[in-house]
């Protein structure tokens, strides 16, 4: 059981029905559920997209692309069927928010998927969960079956004359499948290898048809936008960053948990007030603001608002909402190494700069951490990472390179402290010895 954490500053929108028994369709309807579909039907495709644009909702998966604009890219006329694809392959280290949505409010995902479908006249949606979330598939399958029984899915939904079907499934363990084009490959029963873009999924996506693909939190927010009105939702956040989002606090923090806070909420306040600060009277060293792929901020860079633009301006990214807090005892080389071990493991191998780059970075960081590195290795790590940037089909290469560059740049002294055979000056948490294949 995953539960939502609360604080007086929390604003429950997407978490509005959490902990209220809304997994059951009757209760969901009692709480105003499925009221948004008739509203969307009345607005029609163009009206839906306008409402979405007014909400200033930006993609909660990490890139922060405006959702309404994304939907508007789907062509009106298409020879091939259109699809809606919900990305619940939540795998970004530090992120555990979609899990809560599926567990506590599965119908909001279904309702959001239906509305997304209506906006582009799609007849079919897919909800793809990560393989590790098998217990959530059971919850989602039950919710989908209930929605069919009520006539909210299937033929002539809500008596509108329109048809809409939803299929749910899980993946089988692959971070890369969280990338939109790799997800489509996986859903087509193949290895999760990214596709070259353009064409973008809005034009050529799943099964070659125009496809709306959004993060699960983005989709689950949609019914709430129609419940409150797009403009009202937008007001909760900051300029161009509408609403609220689920932030996952983890690491060295007194009260880790998933909290729903307004977009633009101050990061320092989030850590010290919402999260209760750093345990055991330790000092803060760094914060990874939006999942493992986002460049770390130092302790004096965190007085910023957590929206896509402000975190971008601070040289990092808001990402997936995974806020990982590191205290002064953390070895940044070890942290960089663990991050890189992850990317080396998850690189699909399709693009050489990513496949080779992540592996060499892992080896270099291991050598540095163990005390076998020379001065030049530090610059080589940065050089290698910089040369991966922008040279791969999908963002995984960038996701590995960007934090690495930041670690070297901002914590160079710590990297240097590992040189000359000294190895790690910090309390050594165990690292698996490397097997070089």
């Amino acid at each position, binding site marked *: 059981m995953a539960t939502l954490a609360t604080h007086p500053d929390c604003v429950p929108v997407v978490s509005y029905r959490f902990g209220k028994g809304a997994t059951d369709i009757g209760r969901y309807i009692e709480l105003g559920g499925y009221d948004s579909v008739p509203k969307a039907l009345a607005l029609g495709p163009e009206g839906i997209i306008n409402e979405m644009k007014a909400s200033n909702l930006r993609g909660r998966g990490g890139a922060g692309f405006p959702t309404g604009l994304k939907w508007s890219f789907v062509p009106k006329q298409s020879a091939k*069927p259109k699809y809606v694809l919900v990305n619940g392959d939540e795998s970004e280290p530090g992120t555990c928010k979609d899990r809560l949505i599926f567990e506590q409010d599965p119908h909001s995902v279904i309702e959001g998927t239906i509305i997304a479908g209506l906006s582009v006249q799609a007849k079919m949606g897919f909800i793809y969960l990560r393989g590790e979330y098998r217990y959530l598939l059971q919850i989602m399958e039950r919710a989908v079956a209930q929605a069919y029984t009520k006539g909210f899915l299937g033929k002539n939904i809500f008596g509108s004359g329109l048809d809409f079907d939803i299929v749910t499934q899980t993946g089988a363990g692959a971070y890369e499948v969280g990338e939109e084009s790799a997800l489509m490959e996986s859903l087509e029963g193949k290895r999760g290898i990214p596709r070259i873009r353009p064409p973008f999924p809005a034009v050529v996506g799943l099964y070659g048809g125009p496809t709306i693909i959004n993060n699960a939190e983005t989709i689950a927010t949609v019914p709430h936008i129609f419940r409150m009105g797009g403009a009202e939702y937008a007001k909760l956040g900051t300029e161009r960053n509408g609403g609220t989002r689920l932030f996952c606090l983890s690491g060295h923090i007194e009260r880790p948990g998933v909290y729903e806070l307004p977009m633009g909420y101050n990061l320092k306040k989030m850590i010290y007030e919402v999260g209760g600060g750093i345990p055991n009277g330790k000092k803060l060293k760094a914060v990874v603001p939006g999942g493992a792929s986002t460049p770390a901020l130092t302790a004096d860079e965190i007085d910023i608002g957590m929206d896509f633009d402000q975190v971008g301006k601070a040289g990092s990214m808001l990402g997936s909402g995974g806020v990982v*807090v590191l205290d002064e005892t953390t070895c940044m080389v070890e942290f960089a190494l663990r991050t890189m071990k992850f990317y080396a493991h998850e690189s699909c191998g399709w693009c050489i700069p990513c496949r080779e780059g992540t592996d060499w970075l892992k080896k270099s960081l291991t050598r540095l951490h163990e005390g076998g590195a020379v001065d030049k290795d530090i610059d080589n790590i940065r050089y290698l990472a910089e040369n991966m940037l922008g040279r791969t089909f999908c963002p995984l290469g960038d996701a590995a390179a960007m934090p690495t560059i930041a670690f070297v740049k901002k914590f160079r002294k710590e990297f240097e402290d590992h040189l000359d055979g000294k190895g790690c000056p910090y309390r050594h948490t165990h690292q698996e010895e490397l097997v070089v294949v």
Partner: protein
Amino acid sequence: MSSTTLFSPALAARFDKLVTLYPVKRSALVPMLLYAQDEVGYLSDAVIVEIADRIGITELDVRNVISYYSLLRIKPAGKYHVQVCTNISCMLRGGNEILDHCKKKLGVANKGVTPDGLFSLEEVECIGACSWAPAAQVNYDFHENLTAEAIDKVLDDYRTKSKSGVAK
């Protein structure tokens, strides 16, 4: 479809339906592999042949997909597959120590299986339990906010469950 199947009648029926749900049959491949593995324990040669046949693709196509996904395995795991996360959020809160503790307790290395086949151990990447770290999954069940004592209890409970003959 051939009349003989390796799977239980319920699973065979589920597969018959699964291949009709998607615009293309092949989309059912990943879910079929997972469900087959859940029932058989791993993806044996015979399982691979039958799934290839059900979908109408080659055995090689199926193997090509299996080798991509980390949850899919072609060798048996323990009855209880213990997956300890050591990714960043778990690492910061003692995930590596939990893994070490499990190695000692079970007497196996990473990816090892205990001689009685009851447990297998694997270090895994982020499982989506970051705010409740450190965490592990045993089969599909999450165990969170772990300490050495807590994981001991988790493992002991599975051992007891197995002895008393209660299914997982």
